[in-house]
């Protein structure tokens, strides 16, 4: 009886063919890179994220339009050869606004997520491992920060610090470190009981080495995923705040600022090109980041083969 050949059979045949021809290359030395490269969704996501970031950074090369230039003769024109995504209420090129908007949106999202991760992970890892007085103190602080209505906290901070891009990132970092802190702490609480940690303690290694070098890599998977999710969350938060007039100043284009016109029912129903591209961009970008996050999680976990 013959077995139906499976996907693996094909793969094996291919490998054998290559071996016989002597063209089989030894896998390159970096295991992590190989693994990430073999995850198609992650590669796709990474490609999309990279393209968006590059397009945003080199926006002047991608489009010749100024995202802020008002052209009252070209109000609400549908997509055409001149304006590939049409124009908005006051005649600004939608495509240019999305590309330039990416600069700010990505910067706010990624910057805040990394800032929050830096604070949350370092505090969470250390106090979670040490336990005791510091641990309970920071746990209470994070509970206070997280239980306070975030929008009011942001309002307060904007009033105190003033409205600017940098301040927005600082505010997001200060209000958003709680979830990453708690995640890291929870990971540490379970990992610190592992026997290899006790073995390291028996050698008398110092707390920092044990905590950050030996234990933290095992907690990185969920942290990576959380950072990517936070990036997405901060991009959305920025949009929400921009709508309230508290986020990025309204004259600067961001994905959130562009979306706001969809508040107007007339535009929502009749002029899809004004808001849909920006909405799709946000969704795709967030999705792509999540794919990258999943890929990274699998990469950082050495027990996941293939």
């Amino acid at each position: 009886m013959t077995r139906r050949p499976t996907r693996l059979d094909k793969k094996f045949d291919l490998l054998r063919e290559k071996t016989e021809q002597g063209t089989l290359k030894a896998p390159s030395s970096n295991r992590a890179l190989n693994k990430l490269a073999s995850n198609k969704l992650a590669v796709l996501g990474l490609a999309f994220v990279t393209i968006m970031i590059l397009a945003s950074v080199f926006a002047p090369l991608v489009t010749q339009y100024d995202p802020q230039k008002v052209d009252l003769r070209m109000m609400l024109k549908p997509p055409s050869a001149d304006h590939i995504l049409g124009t908005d209420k006051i005649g600004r090129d939608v495509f240019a606004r999305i590309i330039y908007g990416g600069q700010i949106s990505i910067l706010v999202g990624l910057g805040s997520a990394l800032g929050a991760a830096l604070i949350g992970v370092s505090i969470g890892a250390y106090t979670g491992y040490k336990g005791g007085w510091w641990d309970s103190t920071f746990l209470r602080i994070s509970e206070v920060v997280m239980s306070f209505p975030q929008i009011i906290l942001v309002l307060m901070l904007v009033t105190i610090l003033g409205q600017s891009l940098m301040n927005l990132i600082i505010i997001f970092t200060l209000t958003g470190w709680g979830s990453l802190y708690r995640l890291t702490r929870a990971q540490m609480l379970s990992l610190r009981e592992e026997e290899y940690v006790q073995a390291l303690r028996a050698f008398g290694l110092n707390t920092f080495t044990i905590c950050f070098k030996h234990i933290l890599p095992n907690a990185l998977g969920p942290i990576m995923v959380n950072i990517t999710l936070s990036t997405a969350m901060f991009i959305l938060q920025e949009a929400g705040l921009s709508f309230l007039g508290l986020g990025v100043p309204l004259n600067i284009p961001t994905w959130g600022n562009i979306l706001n016109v969809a508040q107007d029912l007339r535009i929502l129903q009749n002029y899809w090109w004004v808001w849909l591209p920006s909405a799709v961009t946000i969704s795709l970008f967030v999705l792509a980041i999540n794919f990258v996050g999943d890929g990274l999680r699998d990469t950082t976990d050495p027990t996941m083969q293939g």
Partner: protein
Amino acid sequence: MPSQEKILHINGLKTYFPVRKGLLRTVAAHVKAVDGVDLEIYRGETLGLVGESGCGKTTLGKSIIQLVGAVGGQILYHEGEQTFDLLNLSPEEFKHIRQKIQIVFQDPHSSLNPAFTVFGSLQDPLKLYGVKTKAERRKIIGDLLEAVNMRREQMDNYPHEFSGGQRQRIGIARALCVNPEIVICDEAVSALDVSIQAQVLQLLQEIKEARGLTYIFITHDLSVVEYISDRVAVMYLGKIVELAESEALYRTPRHPYTQALLSAIPIADLDRKSDRIVLEGDVPNPVSPPSGCAFHPRCPKFKSLSEPEKQRCMGESPQLSDATQLTQPHLVSCHYPN
């Protein structure tokens, strides 16, 4: 063969864990995991430490290596003419002594860091103890792997690529990497299947002879202890109840608890009927151990005692003392040993 030179002297060691209750997390009681243990360990011997789950044998091991803090007593480490109290060391002494006692753990799956190769896991302790260059570290770790019957190249593999027995051998190699004098084997073979157990035990014996180590072998498996130990200490509820040469203890157990434990070893002989002594009830709560002899509520012998004798068992805590007056001490903590 074990010498008569003391290497470790444990004196009235107590390790209590606080039980916190209520809103303010005030300490309501203590779990007396190790409650006044006296133990002398001689250079080059293997001391078996046996007892039921929860009797405090692992806590005793971890107290010696200070993974849990003891609340009282002394652990004296003798090195040449010098004596160090492990519970009372200056930072420099601490670093020096810490490497002298190492531990091999029970669970081969959690005892190695999954994020690091064997080399990655083992190199930091070596760095700490002054092996400066990478080449030297690789050489030492390679030699250690060969000492535990593994291949030198395997230092670049991750833990998930090894079997349970291999991981346990890596665990042994790790304990050896800083040249300890005493190795505490905490249930070191309990998680392995029997054929691998035999291999690892054999390996432990070989290493001990080659390096002149002293073992404290913690286990609940009495047949393993019989195979490997020179002396055996039996623990019950945080105290040592019997301590004797391995052979003497197995041949003529004095404490009723030891007798019950030994009667539970299965014997592969159809003609011999074992007189199994079944203990009633569970191990008492170590938060509030029974008065007098902690074993009396479960003691098979207690029932047959006369009333004044029972009163003594219930009221007076027995001391660990020599029961036989023979050349080799056979210590029992029982008012009426066999």
